[in-house]
């Protein structure tokens, strides 16, 4: 009795979760979690030491709840093991290396084996397929590929589905619109802020949206608030979906919305997700907002156990109207750390502090001012305070200003307006958000 035709018609990215209820998903997760712990213990020194320090063995993880005994992995842990300390396979098995920015001085380096690359491609294909992208779609991918190398996963997912990739990258909004018309793009994949900018350009040029063939927007890494989503949907005549990935893991596709746009389904066959109180580290139940902690279940090169993402979100285990049984996370608009995002670029105040200290250590204080549009960081100003005795500075005000501006652009990939100010008019400690009203 060969497999029936019905059984054969499924998509490869569905097969692990197909037909599984919540209990069965948890069983699969336990199986994969134990495997991950076994591998991490035997292949990654950092994790072996961690297990040994707390007197735990991988075989002590008998249930998903037992993971609570294990300490968290942080960004600093990853950065401290630059370059290859966290890899579970030899370098010759790695087919792709990616760097991500972080709060520390050393970059975080992530590696992928062939299988890991395939997993991420499948996850992206799954998400794209679940929002209705199919073979005949033309997907215009308007990300900054050099800054956000995860954009290549959009290419991979599109090709996996069999749709057409139109990689428009960061050409101007005017050219984006031309490509959209000439190639009849049906899907736009980009950051919400760039999408908004393209929309604004379209209006400025009095371009009739009916000339476009767009039907779907897939946006990340920032989340859209409801106001922004509505504006993009109405403006382009599309359905706009959010997609999520942990920046340090580089690739998007960890979670994404389904056609019902009611939370992002987490790829639970590949990740075990927890929510913790960021201050105490205690686990929180579904519904309570807290910091998302991720454990990888299938990645070969880079197992991560209880990685603190810094993103504040909440879970829902309630069944979704789409029928999928995976838990959903709410869009994340807050962080548990100081990271800010401007036009899709993540910046840590600590990075800025390091840059300033390197250029002009006599600068006594600084502030970052983020201007937002529709809840998205749109513009960044840097206010710096000179020392009382300016003769101590290495250059003139103008020279230092220019050096800081160009270094910021080089290191962060973002144009920042830098201004001198005085202690007296410097805003209070912390970050100040100003809303630009159009």
């Amino acid at each position, binding site marked *: 009795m060969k497999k029936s035709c019905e059984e054969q018609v499924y998509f490869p990215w569905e097969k692990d979760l197909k037909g599984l209820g919540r209990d069965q998903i948890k069983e699969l997760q336990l199986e994969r979690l134990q495997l991950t712990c076994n591998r991490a213990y035997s292949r990654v020194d950092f994790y072996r030491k961690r297990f040994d320090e707390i007197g735990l063995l991988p*075989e002590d993880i008998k249930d998903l709840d037992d993971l609570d005994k294990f300490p968290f992995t942080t960004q600093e842990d990853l950065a401290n093991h630059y370059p290859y300390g966290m890899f579970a396979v030899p370098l010759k098995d790695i087919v792709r290396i990616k760097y991500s920015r972080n709060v520390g001085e050393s970059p975080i380096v992530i590696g992928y084996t062939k*299988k890991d690359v395939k997993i991420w491609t499948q996850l992206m294909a799954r998400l794209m397929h679940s929002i209705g992208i199919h073979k005949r779609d033309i997907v215009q991918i308007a990300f900054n590929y050099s800054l956000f190398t995860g954009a290549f996963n959009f290419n991979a997912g599109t090709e996996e589905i069999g749709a057409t990739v139109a990689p428009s990258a960061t050409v101007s909004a005017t050219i984006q619109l031309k490509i959209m018309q000439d190639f009849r793009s049906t899907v736009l994949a980009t950051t919400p802020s760039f999408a908004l900018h393209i929309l604004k350009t379209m209006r400025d040029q009095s371009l009739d949206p009916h000339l476009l063939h767009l039907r779907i927007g897939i946006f990340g890494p920032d989340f859209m608030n409801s106001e922004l989503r509505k504006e993009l949907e109405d403006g382009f005549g599309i359905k706009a979906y959010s997609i999520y990935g942990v920046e340090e893991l580089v690739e998007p596709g960890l979670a994404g919305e389904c056609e019902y746009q009611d939370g992002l389904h987490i790829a639970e066959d590949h990740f075990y997700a927890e929510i913790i109180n960021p201050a105490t580290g205690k686990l929180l139940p579904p519904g309570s907002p807290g910091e998302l902690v991720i454990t990888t279940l299938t990645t070969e090169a880079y197992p991560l156990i209880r990685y603190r993402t810094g993103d504040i979100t909440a879970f829902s285990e309630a069944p979704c109207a789409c029928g999928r049984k995976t838990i959903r996370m709410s869009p994340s608009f807050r962080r548990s750390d100081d990271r800010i995002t401007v036009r899709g670029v993540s910046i840590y105040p600590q990075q800025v502090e390091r840059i300033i200290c390197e250029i002009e250590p006599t600068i006594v204080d600084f502030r970052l001012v983020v201007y937002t549009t529709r809840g998205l960081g749109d513009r960044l100003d840097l206010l710096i305070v000179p020392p009382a005795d300016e003769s101590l500075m290495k250059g003139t005000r103008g020279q230092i200003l220019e050096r800081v501006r160009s270094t910021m652009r080089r290191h962060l990939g973002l144009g920042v307006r830098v201004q001198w100010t005085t202690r007296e008019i410097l805003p209070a400690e912390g970050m100040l958000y100003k809303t630009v009203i159009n």
Partner: protein
Amino acid sequence: MLRVKNLSVSYGRIKVLRQVTFHVKKGEIVTLVGSNGAGKSTLLSVLSGLKKELEGEIFFEGQKINGLRADQIVKMGIVQVPEARQLFNTMTVEENVSLGAYVHRKTCSKEELREREEKVYDIFPVLRERQMQQAGTLSGGEQQMLSIARALMAKPRLLLLDEPSLGLAPLVVKEIFNIIKEMRDNGTTILLVEQNALAALKVSDRGYVLESGKIILSGDSSELLENEEVRRAFLGKEYREKWER
């Protein structure tokens, strides 16, 4: 169909299996790959009810089968083809085959058993030719076929194969594995334990890699065949790259 959760087995103070969790879905061929001493055969002994001292849980079609007697487990449909055949060497092929249905002797009619025998001889025609021959005088490959035939007589729903390729010539191994594939296509779920990872992964749907009693890798067999760790550990130098052929 089969779900094993947190299985830990020791021989005295030596831990042979540590928190092994895996599953086999109906209609699949799943292979357990690992070198000598990894714990593979112990796992099959536990599943067959031959070793009862264990921690953890084993579920067969939703029912917990920890602690059941070996014959009860066979009756439920889990049948093992043991390592190194373990035939009744002084008995004939026919006697070995008919003994395979021993647990069902009281519940099945003579006609049904005869029908089953015919089906088994259809799968292994060479055994039909040698029905009256003593099992111990058969070739290695024929003995392996007889061992499988005997197991099939018990109408397994889950067939456990312990190192079916052991001591067999490569061509014979190929033939045996083709038969294994056919059995799966005919509705038998198979858990295959093998040191010959290449042959096992080529025929199976999914695989798990056991190392020192722990599962350290799992995935589709096609993926595992390409996995560098698996290739280094099990596939050796004979496995050439596509472009080297």
